[in-house]
């Protein structure tokens, strides 16, 4: 299908793209490599310093912290959002009317700028903010919540026994019955609370400084953990929509056959759902990894509020070493760190290609 002149035409059509790619990527990349071997600081004459930047990089507290944070952040956020999204998608896997509406609602945090969303988030997690207030309510009403859960369990047991007595096939955690049980439990707890039979805890005060602290939880700085919550909150629904689309493509017959073959719900998930979702799963995981390992915006926005040691990431280090450190720009160090970031990204891309999801597999 080769025609004469295609090459020339293609070159002309591609000229702007090639210009950008050459200057802003190729040239930039080569220069980053070059700078990483120098002690350039935007001002003085550049000197070649060999591998010194790379060696001191791994002794630099902020770089090491940034690298660890980026990896931990990517791992935890990707795992949690994938798991949560899958869970929610399985719960919601039905012929749904009005999906467009829900999808529209779920995308809203994704279309607003990260600065706007993070700003609102910073406000919500203030020491005297709404998140702490909700937690305080949770602690206060803990006795009632325990009561509600207990009654739910009781109601569920009664219902399951009753249905099975009538020869109906229900499992212990049948979602339909669970819904009813939960309703019963909640109503009963409200009545118990209103009549004063169960008193909420009083005098509790929750004032967790989510951002303005150096405290850690399970070794993860609390501010970074807050940013993780933010990211999981904003992306899980989007990922859920992806899973839902994947789930609805699975032929119903597969499940029916599995039922006839005597598969338990767990086996159905393990042998029918998950294999059928593999392509979507990998899409969700790669998108998640790529998006999280490069986390910059939230770190940059919260850096003035939270201690830098608690929120710095690899991508933010690359910026900070040049413009934020309060010293002459450390361009060499920043470049070396930038290459580490590029290598991590490349690793994710290669991993995804190696696993067979090339652009043919998951793009089209």
């Amino acid at each position, binding site marked *: 299908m080769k025609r004469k002149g295609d090459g020339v035409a293609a070159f002309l059509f591609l000229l702007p793209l090639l210009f950008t790619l050459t200057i802003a990527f190729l040239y930039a990349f080569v220069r980053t490599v070059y700078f990483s071997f120098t002690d350039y600081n935007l*001002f003085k004459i550049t000197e070649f310093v060999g591998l010194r930047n790379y060696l*001191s990089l791994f002794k630099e*507290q902020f770089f090491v912290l940034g690298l660890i944070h980026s990896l931990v952040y990517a791992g935890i956020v990707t795992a949690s959002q994938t798991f949560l999204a899958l869970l929610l998608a399985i719960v919601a896997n039905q012929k749904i009317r009005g999906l467009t509406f829900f999808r529209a609602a779920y995308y809203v945090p994704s279309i607003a700028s990260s600065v706007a969303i993070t700003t609102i988030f910073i406000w919500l997690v203030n020491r*005297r903010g709404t998140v702490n207030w909700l937690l305080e309510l949770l602690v206060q009403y803990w006795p009632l919540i325990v009561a509600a859960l207990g009654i739910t369990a009781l109601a569920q047991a009664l219902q399951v026994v009753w249905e099975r007595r009538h020869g109906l096939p229900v499992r212990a955690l049948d979602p339909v019955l669970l819904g009813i049980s939960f309703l019963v439990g909640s109503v009963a707890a409200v009545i118990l609370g209103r009549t004063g039979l169960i008193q909420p805890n009083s005098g509790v005060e929750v004032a967790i*400084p989510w951002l303005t602290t150096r405290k850690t939880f399970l070794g993860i700085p609390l501010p970074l953990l807050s940013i993780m919550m933010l990211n999981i909150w904003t992306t899980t629904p989007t990922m859920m929509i992806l899973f839902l689309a994947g789930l609805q493509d699975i032929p119903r017959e597969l499940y029916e056959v599995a039922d006839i073959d005597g598969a338990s719900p767990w086996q159905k998930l393990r042998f029918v759902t998950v294999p059928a979702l593999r392509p979507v799963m990998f899409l969700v995981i790669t998108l998640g990894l790529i998006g999280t390992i490069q986390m910059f915006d939230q770190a940059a926005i919260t850096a003035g509020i939270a*201690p830098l040691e608690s929120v710095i990431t690899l991508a933010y280090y690359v910026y900070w070493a040049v*413009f934020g450190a*309060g010293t*002459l*720009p450390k361009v060499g160090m920043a470049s070396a760190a930038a290459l580490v970031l590029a290598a991590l990204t490349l690793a994710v891309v290669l991993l995804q290609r190696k696993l067979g999801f090339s652009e043919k597999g998951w793009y089209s």
Partner: protein
Amino acid sequence: MRKFLVVFCLIAVAALGFAQETVTIRLAGYSADTPLMQDVLARFVNGVIPGVQVVWEPITEDYLAFVLRTLSAGTAPDILYIDLYWAKTVVETGLIQPLDDFIAASPIISREDLIPVLADAFTFDGKLYAISKDFNSLVVFYNKDMFDAMGVPYPNADDTWATFLDKIARVSNPPDWYGASINPDAARFLPFAFAAGMPFLKEDGTAPFDLPAAKMGADWYTAFNRAGIAATSADIGVGWSGAAFIAEKAAVCFEGGWLIPPIRNENPTLNFGATYLPSVWQGGPRGNYLFTVGYGMPVNPPSGRPDLVFKVIETLTSPEIQTYILESGHAIPSRQALLDSPFFQQQDPFALATKTVFEATGLPGTVPFSFGDVGGGNYMGAVNEALTLIMQGEATVEEAMNAAADNLDQKIGQ
């Protein structure tokens, strides 16, 4: 048509001639100075110095980052603020113009006119890089009503660490107000540590925070919060300890002259006074920081007229303008000649507080707020972290200060 062309050409020539005569000079400073600087420029510079039009550019972002970026791009303004805190970093770029030759040639200003400590602070390798525009140091601000209400004598110049702590304990009346608003802030703590005898670095060039003097200072500085007689500004729900003072939530705070304009604007009838930071023991040493910002000029300022740029700097730091700034209560001037200003004889609390700040800088033990090669971020970061841990009860003074010393040693070692 020809007539029109002639007129047009005449106008064009006139316009060009005019354009050549007036040099536009850009002056970039902290955005918080905007009202004052616009006022000062309109009164004393534009239209007064012939052939010069100074344009004020308020900078809202991190000023050091702004300076480094614009210097690197060659777009730096003609006149820069140079904060003593990071002056060395900026001078090291080699793109800041030493002012000695201009001063030597100037009939108006000589180095002797400048307060020596301020001139020395901006001198690197024997060259003067900036002329101080004003300066500040820390004092104790106190709310007279609160001390009266609790029957406690006001803090005064004779207070020692012990008597001061005792007064704060007695004046504290939470939840209505705390005895003091104290933050884990190195810039407030270090003067006390220096007073207790902590050197900036040990003789071998390592961090001094594990010395007994440093621990003694940290123990005293954090005692207020640990005893519940002081609260951090975050605990009180405001942005800085001065705001807690203005909102009458703290009886005392350690602030500089910058607290005076906000009091005037936000709580003008506040019944307050100011005194020196307490001394370690009766008649013993005191510490303090000298904060200052100067005007500097890049090498080859973009207007192309360094002489005119210097003329503007000279005018802005002249006794006339400095008196005006002083009397408007904004800042404390940097000229020797102003020490006897009649403003200091006034008896209203604002003038008295200004005077106290001014005198405090002259006391022995006051050191410039600068960190040399160590880097202010490194030095203060280590201290802030230790103070936070102690105040939150997560570490003892001993543990936290030793950790701070290790932390800084690591950073210096690199």
